[in-house]
């Protein structure tokens, strides 16, 4: 059967109607739905406040963390205890030193899970193996659900989750704010030992107020005169104060919106599964019409050739 160019264009136009509609709808929504609302914190949100200006870099918190979590000491091959270059499968908490090349400026920096208000790893995880506790807001890992795809490692903007690469039965390792200890009425390992109170534990609201108090008390002491984590990436339950600009410490500029917000177009397109259904119905309509034509064509062919038709 010959098909005219005109018909082709008509089909293309018809077939793309649902797609066009999708584009218009999502475009319209994105105009309306742009709001700067901070992601609400859980009621009993707890967290850490790390003040880099108070930290003396003794790394006691790393030892305390390893002890609280029953992690073997990270010796790598050189026998130096607890001095890995980055978080890894036996290090849930690390103290790093930022120093300019000429040594004119330096600051310590503590890194562990930020316990985001809207965690990217939780959005990324296929089966909710990464989950945020609705009460305390602690982000933790449930081994029985994890397939080991490591999407959480790709997704986390802070590079926190670590994978046990050497194991037959590998686990994801990250700070869970010493969940078990909190249940027993204890504090997280790192905050129990800090000699200068550089890192403290408490309810998120209290810590935020304390951080703001410190900024108000000594104006000009802190970088950008703000608390990192109050709004960054939708807010995190671990808060930072620093004299050195945050990005130099390796804290990314995430802006106001949580990273999972980047998927909002996707979610809108899949809402109620309506657009895929419309698209499916449209394609089946044209496919069945064209299928009938094709089958007719095949039967006609067989009459002349005597060969079995092929689908």
């Amino acid at each position, binding site marked *: 059967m010959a098909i005219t160019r005109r018909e*082709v264009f008509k089909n*293309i136009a018809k*077939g793309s109607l649902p797609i066009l509609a999708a584009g218009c709808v999502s475009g319209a929504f994105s105009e309306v739905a742009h709001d700067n609302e901070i992601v609400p914190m859980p009621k009993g949100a707890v967290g850490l406040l790390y003040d880099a200006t108070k930290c003396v870099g003794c790394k006691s918190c790393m030892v305390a963390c390893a002890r609280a979590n029953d992690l073997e000491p990270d010796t790598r091959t050189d026998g130096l205890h607890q001095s890995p270059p*980055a*978080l*890894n*499968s036996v290090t849930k908490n690390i103290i790093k030193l930022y120093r300019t090349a000429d040594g004119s400026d330096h600051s310590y920096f503590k890194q562990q899970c930020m316990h985001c208000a809207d965690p*990217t790893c939780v*959005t*990324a*995880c*296929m*089966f*909710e193996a990464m989950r945020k506790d609705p009460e305390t807001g602690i982000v933790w890992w449930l081994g029985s*659900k*994890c*397939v*080991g*795809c*490591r999407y959480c490692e*790709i*997704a986390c*903007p802070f*590079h926190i989750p670590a*994978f*046990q*690469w*050497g*194991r037959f*039965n*590998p686990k994801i390792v990250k700070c869970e704010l010493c969940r078990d200890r909190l249940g027993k009425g204890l504090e997280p390992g790192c905050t129990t030992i800090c000699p200068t109170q550089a890192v403290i534990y408490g309810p998120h609201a209290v810590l935020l107020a304390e951080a703001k108090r410190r900024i108000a008390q000594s104006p000009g002491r802190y970088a950008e005169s703000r608390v990192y984590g109050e709004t960054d990436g939708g807010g995190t339950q671990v808060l930072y104060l620093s004299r050195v600009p945050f990005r130099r410490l*390796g804290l*990314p500029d*995430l802006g106001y919106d949580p*990273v*999972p917000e*980047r*998927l909002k177009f*996707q979610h809108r397109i899949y809402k109620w599964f309506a657009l*895929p259904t419309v698209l*499916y119905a449209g*394609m*089946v309509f*044209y*496919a*069945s019409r*064209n*299928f009938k*034509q*094709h089958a007719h*064509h*095949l*039967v006609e062919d*067989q009459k002349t*050739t005597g*060969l*079995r*038709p*092929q*689908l």
Partner: protein
Amino acid sequence: MTRWERSVPVYGIPVVNRGFWGLLIVVAIGMVLTVFREVVGLGITSGMSDPYAWGLWKTFNVMVLTGLGSGAFAVGIAAWVFNRTKLHSVMRVALLTSFLAYFSGLAMLGVDVGRPWNFYWVMLPWQWNLHSPLLEIAFCMSMYATLPLFLENLPPVFEYVIYEFPKWGGIARFCEKVLTKVYPFLIGLAYLLPIMHQSSLGALMLLGGNRVNALWQTPFLPLIYVWASGFLGYNCVVLCLLLAKVAWGRDVDPEVLAEMNRITCWVAFTWTAFRFADILVRGKILLALRPSAYSLLFWTETILIAGSAYLLYSEKGKKLQVMFLAHAACALGGMIYRFSPTTLAFRPRPGAFYFPSAIEVLICVGFIALMVLGYIIAVKKLAILPGTNADWLKMAKYEERIKPGIRLTGYAPVEH
């Protein structure tokens, strides 16, 4: 001038020959190393690390090769939905390449994950995290490969049974009839699911944020990904057809090839234009003009894709050698594009480095060899590659001489 009228098996050449053994050795090495990887874990066997948590297996075998294996979707949607009737003759090649690419990709996904015994959660929908693009891929891709794509590949198998095992012919005919009844609903699914998971492959890296270079990171990543699979599918099918001419002396139908070239060239052109428009609107064009490894990569992709699209558009593209080169270059450009956001243009943290280990590469190559092996066996046993009615009659004469009991011609008309 040859007209492709029906699919004809490659006949007169034994399945087991030197090439077969060569491929089998590569496959065997890959499989042995896969067992080794399952026993000792990922650390020793791969170059992956915490910052580069995804290696070749996911970023190449899944992200890139399923793009190349989108022929069933790209050619099929043009043939069945947009009624480009000429393309029906190459549908079987497209379906077979897609089937092999998807199964190899899914198998690699199983090798890549660290805790595969937990995969059974995918069968319990109430345990899903519907926000995860990876879940969408895992579910949608396995559903596509096992349902529409698998069923669409069955007609050549039924045909084989009818001809070679007349005893089972009745059952095969019945199955064929049932399949014909549900076919339109099936192929609707066969185009919806790839649109969904091919775009989700792009959505994966949306969560990568600023660590993916700004030339690649865009809110339209899902659209650009699924669009790229549009021309990659055609590239793969045309390359298969031209290689069949080189390897087995199969004639080509210039009209069908011209149709495919036209579609490839327009998809590739519009893809490039959209990508440029996106970069311009986001105001990142200066990144492409500043000399750096990223701009080099960007221009390599662009020139390979747009350049070969131009070649296919021009008169020169009618020459088979030029056509082959153009499709190969276009496929290469598209493959680099699909590889970039996860690996080449992905900088998780300063100082982090990824290069695949030898074992990783050998397993990757082993699974690719498995695809090629499956393809070669299939085209020799089943009617996949397009040919003429005269080819079929020649083949029938040959087959009926060496296997007296079978009948390949002279079928009375049946109603469909």
